[in-house]
């Protein structure tokens, strides 16, 4: 614990504690709409953080994280719909399945020395294959989708994850905060230093005796397992799953935009990125509705601006927003 706190500036710690308290009491003051937005932000922050373990810590680019997300979502949902199992039991299955899938892809890629862009495309290939596979599993609804019974939102049942959005808000808050602390601990650990060494120069890391295959495998499996947890909560919040969206490349890209915009490899980048991108997207929607365009055009124009702003961020903040903001606020590195 000491080591965890030692490297952070007091100012940063105070700000972090303040932020957590604000998030803790926020639902009392937020409208239903804003709570829904906050749920999106927290969930993207969580998956972004999980994804960041692979690229930001261990230097391996994955554009197929929808695979792990979808496995968690489908396994927990199927357990609940078909056997009445609690999502928390299904979660164990999802986590195990995702870790195995991650281990399989990682082992293939790393054993055969497939790196960089090629590895990223391998991850896409597996995610896409899985999407098409699930399209053909009739037992899980196939392409027509899998639906969870919509329960009343008056009572909150944490065990079956049936309840009001506020319950999901707190579930996401706990997960996001927990993962933040875990990542901080990982970075301060021996494993974290191994990862950074591999990320910066794999040959050099191997030369000093780091078993790079083994630690890259840890990173993929951990990242996959953590991502599948997000899939479970997502499934029980939205109550419907389609292979087309759950496993899509679009989802993989959606979940990695945040950490890249926020700053790859930083702890606060994924959280900042999720906040910036979601508020951007939501304000575009509000703005587009305000000028009263046709509904089809609204979505398109929103996307155009969204893309343009991402381009601007890449052009002017090449290392992401967090390193810049952190310096601005005087938090040091």
């Amino acid at each position, binding site marked *: 614990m000491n080591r965890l706190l030692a490297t952070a500036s007091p100012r940063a710690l105070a700000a972090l504690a303040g932020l957590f308290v604000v998030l803790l009491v926020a639902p009392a003051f937020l409208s239903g709409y804003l709570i829904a937005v906050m749920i999106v932000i927290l969930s993207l922050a969580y998956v972004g953080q999980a994804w960041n373990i692979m690229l930001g810590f261990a230097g391996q680019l994955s554009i197929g994280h929808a695979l792990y997300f979808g496995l968690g979502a489908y396994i927990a949902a199927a357990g609940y719909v078909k056997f009445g199992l609690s999502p928390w039991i299904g979660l164990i299955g999802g986590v195990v399945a995702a870790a195995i899938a991650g281990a399989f892809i990682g082992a293939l890629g790393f054993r055969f020395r497939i790196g960089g862009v090629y590895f990223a495309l391998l991850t896409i290939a597996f995610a896409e294959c899985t999407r098409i596979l699930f*399209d053909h599993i009739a037992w899980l609804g196939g392409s027509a989708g899998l639906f969870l019974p919509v329960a009343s939102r008056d009572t909150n049942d944490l065990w079956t994850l049936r309840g009001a959005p506020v319950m999901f808000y707190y579930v996401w808050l706990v997960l996001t905060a927990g993962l933040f602390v875990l990542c901080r601990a990982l970075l301060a650990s021996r494993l974290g230093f191994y990862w950074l060494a591999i990320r910066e120069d794999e040959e050099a890391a191997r030369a000093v005796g780091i078993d790079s295959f083994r630690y890259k495998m840890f990173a993929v499996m951990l990242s996959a397992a953590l991502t599948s947890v997000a899939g479970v909560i997502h499934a029980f919040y939205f109550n419907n799953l389609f292979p087309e969206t759950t496993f899509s490349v679009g989802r993989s890209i959606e979940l990695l935009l945040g950490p*890249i915009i926020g700053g790859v490899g930083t702890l606060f980048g994924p959280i900042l990125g999720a906040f910036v991108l979601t508020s951007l997207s939501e304000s575009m929607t509000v703005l587009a509705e305000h000028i009263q365009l046709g509904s089809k*055009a609204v*979505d398109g124009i929103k996307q155009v601006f*969204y893309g343009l702003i*991402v381009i601007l961020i*890449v052009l002017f903040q090449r290392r992401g927003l967090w390193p810049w903001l952190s310096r601005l606020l005087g938090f040091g590195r």
Partner: protein
Amino acid sequence: MPFEVFLNQTASGLLTGLVYGLSALGLSVIFGVVRIVNFAHGEMMVVAMYIALLLFQWLGLEPLLAVVPVAAILFLVGYGLQAGIINRLIDVPDTMQFLLLAAVGIVLTAGCMVIFGPDARNVTLPYSYDSVEVGALLIDKPRLLAGAAALIISALLFLFFRFTRTGKQIRACADNIAGARVVGLNVKRLYAISFGIGSMCIGAAGSIILMLVDVHPYLAGQYTLLAFVIVIVGGMGSHAGALLGGVLIGVSEALAGLLLQPSLKTVFSYAILILVLLFRPQGLLGRRA
């Protein structure tokens, strides 16, 4: 199943594959020289298809003839993109370049969505439903023309890279960037030209493929992934590899559609991709990095 059906299907897959190959050539040229994976590939192709569609609707220009103006427009787009934006980002991490092109893709798809809406549109030609007998084979006429056009354009491109001065300079950049700088080549200009030529291939392929498929904004993702698969199977940066990969994937898609369900055809392509990545990671015709 009669053997002719099988043979016809193979031939039609091969012809479609040539068009896929031309499109993938665009990705391969850009990666081979600029070292950037063009994540906006499919989006650019869809834009090219829409331009060809407009030329047909407004001027009655057939897609086969529209190849020239569409390719020229896409050349300018690609040249501008590299000269205006990407040349500034040569030394940033790969992920940022990826993000930039993905964002360009988002803008293009959304732009098509706003302008054209989500409906599929197509071009009907007088010979759209004609077929040609070639020996024992019966082949759709548009498909035959499309394959031939793709083959001719690819051949011209090979000649360009082999024999022209600019072509040789571009190959020098791809081979050894430091060496190219030492002998005084203007690398940034050559990068822009290469991105332009790569985009030109995409433009030509987009215009040609409009004879075979209906265009809608969401084709983009599918075409991006298809080109990735082809280029990796053939060998990143290898021009002949892109064509070979295209034909291989085209035939495998056609046969998968025949032997299994058409909806499973992409699984076949991905299976080939995974096998190639495992056993010949540099691609069928690629050189070891």
